[in-house]
């Protein structure tokens, strides 16, 4: 069995690097720009770079919102990367207030300058992830403590329920969530497909988990 991943193509972001990483891990991929047949995928990846408002408007106009909620109820993996993670939250303060998918409660807020150290905004660099939970479930269990990942963002996810935080990262003097999870919904602020071998670990573990679940008939 070769897992099949749907990569949501709604006009933003480098969807090709996500595809390459999935293929490299041994998974098949489709780019999806219409929500009619999501059920044939064992996982959906919502990538994204760019403007929050534009991304939400595109998802709305293509009719993805309802089908996403149904997909998530089915228990399959739904993974938001970078802007895709931020879209999972209730709302964003990026140039006004914009409603998000409201799957995980919280607000997307902008980094504030630290007074002591000069931090560039956006953060464009490799930074460390630190485990916030003692026990981390698949497909996130293979990440290595304090490994460097590649981040590109000016806004971060301020989640209400701290139980959803899996790892944190420090920038501009604050510790913010770099991976969040609520059951089968996962958000990652960094780009696992651009974080070299450290990040490809995730795609391999996702593949193994999907096969395992398939074999148990889940």
């Amino acid at each position: 069995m070769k897992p099949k991943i749907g990569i949501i193509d709604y006009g933003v972001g480098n969807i090709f690097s996500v595809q390459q990483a999935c293929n490299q891990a041994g998974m098949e991929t489709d780019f999806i720009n219409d929500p009619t047949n999501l059920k044939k995928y064992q996982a959906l990846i919502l990538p994204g770079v760019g403007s929050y408002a534009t991304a939400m408007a595109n998802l709305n106009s293509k009719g993805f919102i309802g089908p996403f909620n149904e997909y998530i109820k089915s228990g399959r993996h739904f993974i938001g990367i970078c802007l895709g993670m931020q879209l999972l939250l209730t709302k964003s303060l990026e140039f006004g207030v914009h409603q998000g998918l409201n799957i995980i409660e919280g607000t997307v807020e902008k980094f504030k300058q630290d007074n002591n150290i000069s931090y560039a905004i956006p953060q464009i660099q490799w930074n460390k992830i630190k485990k916030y939970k003692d026990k981390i479930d698949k497909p996130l269990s293979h990440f290595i403590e304090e490994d460097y990942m590649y981040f590109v963002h000016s806004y971060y996810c301020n989640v209400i329920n701290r139980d959803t935080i899996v790892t944190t990262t420090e920038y501009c003097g604050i510790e913010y969530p770099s991976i969040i999870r609520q059951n089968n919904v996962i958000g990652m602020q960094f780009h696992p497909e651009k974080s070299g071998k450290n990040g490809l670990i995730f795609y391999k573990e996702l593949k193994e988990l999907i096969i395992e679940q398939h074999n148990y008939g889940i």
Partner: protein
Amino acid sequence: MKTIRIIPRLDIKGPNLVKGIHLEGLRVLGSPEILAQYYYENGADEIIFQDVVASLFDRNSLHEIISRTAKNIFIPITVGGGIRSIEDIQDVLRAGADKVSLNTAAVRNPSFIQEAATTFGSSTIVVAIEAIKNEDGNYYAFVDNGREETGLEVLSWAKKVTDLGAGEILITSVDRDGTGEGFDYELLSAVKNQVNVPVIAHGGGNKSMNLIETIHKSNVEALAFASFLHYDAYNLIQQIPNGVEHGNRSFLEQNQSFKKIESGNISELKNLLLNNNIPCRS
């Protein structure tokens, strides 16, 4: 935590990796994909491809280089050279690039920066500035590999491009480029004082204490290297390009060594940073 990125910059002409001195006098150094792969495996934090000729004829070969590279290396790839329209940006992103760097098109039509940033997000748009110091002590921006003057003063231009939405600035000191004399931290520091986005230093990089001084004095976020890394990598890989003849290959065929410039690898650079308490991915 702030970490410094080390970025190999690969100048491409047709199917080949080339490198000049002061952005002139190109020498063929080998196949860009092989070098990019080598740097990926040896700790590069990103890769920059710069199409130095950017003729229409060579466009397809650039896209092929990008897509072959993007299949095997999983770090960010920035592509610059000859990008003039939203469609050009789309094409290189579709080929597998993560960011584009704009220079001439941004100078000719600054509102293009805004259009590009709105369409693809600021973090996808890097503006490259080629700086030359004038007799009046100011730096001026050039295009076409340092050959054509724009009349734009570098510091105000840097400020303007970030106001228009550039997510990152790549500053090349044309005076230092290909010389291995060290980064021009006076230039870099002046630019950093104007902008809040990350700045990538390029031109003259070596592994002396200049590196540490550059980071302390200018506060830049990333250091791009070309000659310094390529000569070292070339000596290791020793491969002759199979591509079509483009430019001066006699250099390679006679297997001349590059003794003129001190060379080194990414680990040496990172060790130097770490030994001086400057965080970087290791």
